[in-house]
């Protein structure tokens, strides 16, 4: 049986929109939960960095929203976390369920995140390069928590399907600069910021076009049903970028594809540093 962590978190109003949990709040809860699982069953994140010169970067994340839960529904959220390694120690995956007061057969909001271990170079900037987990860390996982098959991000195929068969509703561009409050300890953006930046860009698109393009209003009337993220390269403190967003009507859903690109004097970087796809459906 996979080892897990199950615990409760007191709610605050910042976890919620008027409709459901904030996607960025889910990501922050999940990141904290993954650290808790790792600390309880394998090694603390701090010791991993200090003693094993190993850090993580998030690479692929999926959030599937469950039954609606709001601030007034419960005093606490339930969080359940499991973890495993994949791809011969080249990936660490965690599944995090976040739930309110579940009715029988109720669906929690589920987040799956896949991180890539980095071997840190020992310098104060915490710079590193992708590497397998070392044998000492790997040995702390149970046999059933080690899966040889690597995770494959569903996002590239999803994005291609939306672009091929979806009808474009609107396009937008939202510039941004990364500031320290959006970063983690190494002045590198904290990955849930991608969710906030994409969400902000989506709302700008709605603000600019929803009077003319009525289907866009669903994005303000309903929670995100599914969110997929893929990270290619981080943003750092004071990096300038833009979210290039396209809204589609696709298979009865409203879908937003966001490319987070670096910008500068030479123009937009050709390869997005991160991608986000948000999907909304009518209940």
């Amino acid at each position: 049986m996979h080892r897990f962590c199950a615990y409760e978190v007191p709610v605050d109003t910042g976890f919620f929109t008027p409709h459901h949990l904030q996607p960025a709040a889910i990501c922050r809860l999940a990141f904290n939960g993954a650290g808790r699982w790792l600390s309880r069953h394998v090694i603390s994140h701090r010791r991993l960095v200090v003693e094993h010169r190993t850090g993580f970067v998030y690479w692929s994340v999926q959030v599937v929203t469950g039954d609606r839960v709001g601030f007034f529904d419960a005093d606490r959220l339930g969080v359940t976390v499991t973890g495993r390694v994949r791809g011969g120690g080249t990936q660490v995956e965690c599944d995090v369920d976040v739930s309110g007061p579940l009715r029988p057969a109720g669906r929690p909001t589920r987040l799956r995140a896949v991180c890539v271990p980095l071997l840190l170079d020992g310098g104060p900037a915490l710079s590193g390069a992708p590497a397998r987990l070392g044998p000492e860390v790997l040995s702390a996982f149970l046999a059933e928590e080690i899966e040889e098959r690597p995770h494959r991000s569903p996002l590239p195929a999803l994005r291609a399907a939306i672009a091929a068969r979806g009808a474009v509703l609107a396009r937008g561009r939202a510039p941004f600069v990364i500031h320290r409050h959006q970063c983690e300890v190494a002045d590198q953006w904290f990955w849930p910021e991608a969710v906030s930046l994409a969400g902000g860009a989506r709302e700008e698109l709605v603000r600019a076009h929803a009077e003319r393009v009525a289907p866009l209003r669903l994005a303000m009337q309903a929670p995100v049903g599914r969110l997929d993220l893929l990270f290619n390269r981080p943003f750092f403190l004071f990096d300038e970028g833009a979210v290039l967003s396209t809204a589609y009507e696709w298979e009865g859903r409203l879908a937003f594809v966001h490319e987070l690109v670096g910008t500068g004097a030479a123009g937009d970087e050709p390869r997005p540093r991160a991608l986000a796809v948000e999907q909304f459906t009518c209940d």
Partner: protein
Amino acid sequence: MIVRVSGALLRFTDYQRAINVDAPTVEAALASLASEYQPLRKVLFDRNGRVRATQRIFLNGEPLEPDQLASSAGDADCVELLLAISGG
């Protein structure tokens, strides 16, 4: 030459983003920079004095391999220091 610093390296240069350095080569410019900004020394160089493999160094937009750091550079040249990725 101008050395441009960004992102996670800024705190090691007291948030100076474009620094004028008088040096004949890229390698000498990095050494000079590390003298001027002591905290940067441990970021740029390992304990053997070699430039860390995780640092990306560009000369006028072109990436330099470790064996190209002796490339000469003049007043009009621009060296850029980038950190590829940090682990937190």
